[in-house]
């Protein structure tokens, strides 16, 4: 069967020919002349950067790293809480539990970090040199020392409870817990510096916000975990309240400042994660603590919300970094002061 000539389609072909002859190109019906003879010069040129391709390389870290940030933070904060409990002399059971949380975290963390390395067998290369100007180097050394001190602290404290050499073990526990608290505070806050001292705009532009956020998030999570282990004492409630207040302030300041560099904390997958994490650990946990303070279930629910929010936030920051590194236009605006 032969095709009958269709006048309207023939006229369309004539129109395309005329358009091409007149303007030098045929752009009708959404045709993009991809693959030449001359590609559309979209993107290249004055303001779009280079075909909207990323300028920076995206972070290559995988799921282990945000989990490490979280567990390392909890472990570090637990050691600090244990020291505070020891100073107060009236929370021995809580101190013991905190030391166990710290030591478990301290043993899981190196595994997560090693798993993330491109060459896991070379973790020890981290310990070839110490570079104080590299937060990654500071962090690796901190983690190794923290792990050792956390083990000493928990062993000495258990010996103390078992009544073995109380004089010596008392001194060792004190020294190990003070060292553990210092290293633990470093462990939970260095990760904020690690992100802040990079070329990724959303991280480096939040270098002053991140440490407070990570400190509150880590201490609040450790305290919440102690509550879930049954320590529904006033101290954990106060720590939980303070942490949730700070997380609320962090969330509000990101929203209110409305900076273009924080777009990836407000839009897309990373934005959803940041907002969900911030709401769980911030206003939701805070509300539960204030209005359900008399019920054990209320406090436990607040603790679960805070821990879930803190963990979600760590992933949100990694994802936000990936989105931010991929946005060359935002980087140009930032560097041009627009």
């Amino acid at each position, binding site marked *: 069967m032969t095709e009958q000539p269709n006048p309207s389609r023939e006229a369309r072909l004539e129109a395309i020919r005329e358009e091409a002859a007149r303007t030098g190109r045929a752009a009708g019906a959404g045709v993009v002349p991809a693959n030449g003879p001359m590609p559309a010069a979209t993107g290249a040129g004055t303001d779009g950067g280079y075909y909207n391709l990323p300028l920076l390389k995206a972070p290559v870290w995988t799921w282990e790293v945000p989990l490490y940030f979280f567990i390392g933070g909890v472990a570090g904060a637990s050691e600090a809480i244990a020291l505070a409990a020891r100073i107060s002399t009236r929370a021995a059971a809580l101190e013991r539990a905190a030391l166990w949380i710290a030591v478990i975290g301290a043993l899981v963390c190196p595994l997560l970090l090693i798993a993330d390395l491109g060459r896991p067998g070379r973790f020890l290369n981290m310990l070839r040199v110490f570079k104080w100007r590299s937060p990654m180097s500071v962090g690796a050394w901190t983690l190794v020392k923290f792990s050792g001190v956390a083990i000493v602290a928990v062993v000495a404290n258990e010996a103390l409870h078992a009544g073995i050499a109380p004089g010596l073990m008392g001194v060792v526990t004190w020294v190990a817990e003070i060292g553990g608290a210092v290293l633990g505070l470093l462990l939970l*806050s260095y990760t904020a510096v690690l992100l802040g001292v990079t070329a990724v705009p959303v991280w480096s532009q939040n270098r002053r916000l991140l440490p407070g956020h990570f400190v509150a998030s880590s201490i609040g999570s450790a305290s919440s975990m102690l509550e879930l282990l049954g320590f529904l004492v006033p101290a954990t409630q106060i720590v939980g309240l303070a942490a949730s207040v700070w997380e609320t302030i962090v969330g509000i300041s990101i929203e209110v400042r409305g900076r273009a560099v924080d777009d990836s904390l407000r839009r897309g997958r990373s934005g959803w994660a940041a907002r969900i994490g911030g709401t769980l650990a911030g206003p939701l946990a805070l509300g539960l603590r204030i209005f359900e303070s008399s019920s054990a279930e209320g406090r436990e629910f607040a603790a679960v919300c805070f821990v879930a929010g803190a963990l979600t936030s760590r992933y949100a920051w990694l994802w936000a970094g990936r989105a931010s590194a991929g946005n060359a236009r935002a980087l140009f605006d930032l560097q041009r002061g627009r």
Partner: protein
Amino acid sequence: MSVSAFLTDPTLCIGCKACEVACKEWNGLPQDGLEWTGFSYDNTRQLGASTWRHVLFLEQARPLGTQIAGGEDPFRWVFLSDVCKHCENAGCLEACPTGAIVRTEFESVFVQHDVCNGCGYCVVSCPFGVIDKRVEDGRAFKCTFCYDRQKAGLVPACAKTCPTQSIKFGTIEEMESRAQERVTELRARGYSDAHVYDARGTSVGRSHALFILLGEPEAYNFPPAPDVPTVHLRSAWTAATVAAAVGFLIVCAAFLL
């Protein structure tokens, strides 16, 4: 040892990619995959772990010098071979926790692959987006400035291969003065937007890969005002110290109340 540098000049580049090929071949780099971008003739896209020279293909609605192309609808095609900048204050080198990234006697920045453990911190610390982790290998790779060739007194493979001398190689002083001379010459010839891309005014410092650019650096995906991330060390650590101290005091107060 002489301090060496590249000078890359887009007004001489013909987009032949001999530098990309020479770099891959001399350094034994894996292929990037035969994929078409579909939006330009640049199918390499960007520098990466296995791409240490990258020829950019810019399409701009502007005249090239005094040439008449497109009449009232001016058009120019600009090629530029991008490469690691070998910064004086290198973000990757500062970030590297293993000491794998070092400064050589030619003042270039070199990754020792028997030391790199693939932590990936250099990747997010380069303000130019140059160094990257090779997924199948796990370690980070970038331009070596042909350290092996320079040790033997040879010029880097890309500069050796360039058929139009768009990639020049020599002492840094010579390259800096030649860049200025060339820009003066180009301006006299009607390339009014020719300039030297130089990070010397920024925290990155002197660069061992100089570029002459036509128009603003953004079009080449070059940062207009790069910073080495370690300039933020003080403010970040100060914030961390204050936050950690306040956090611990609140915990102590909670237990002592």
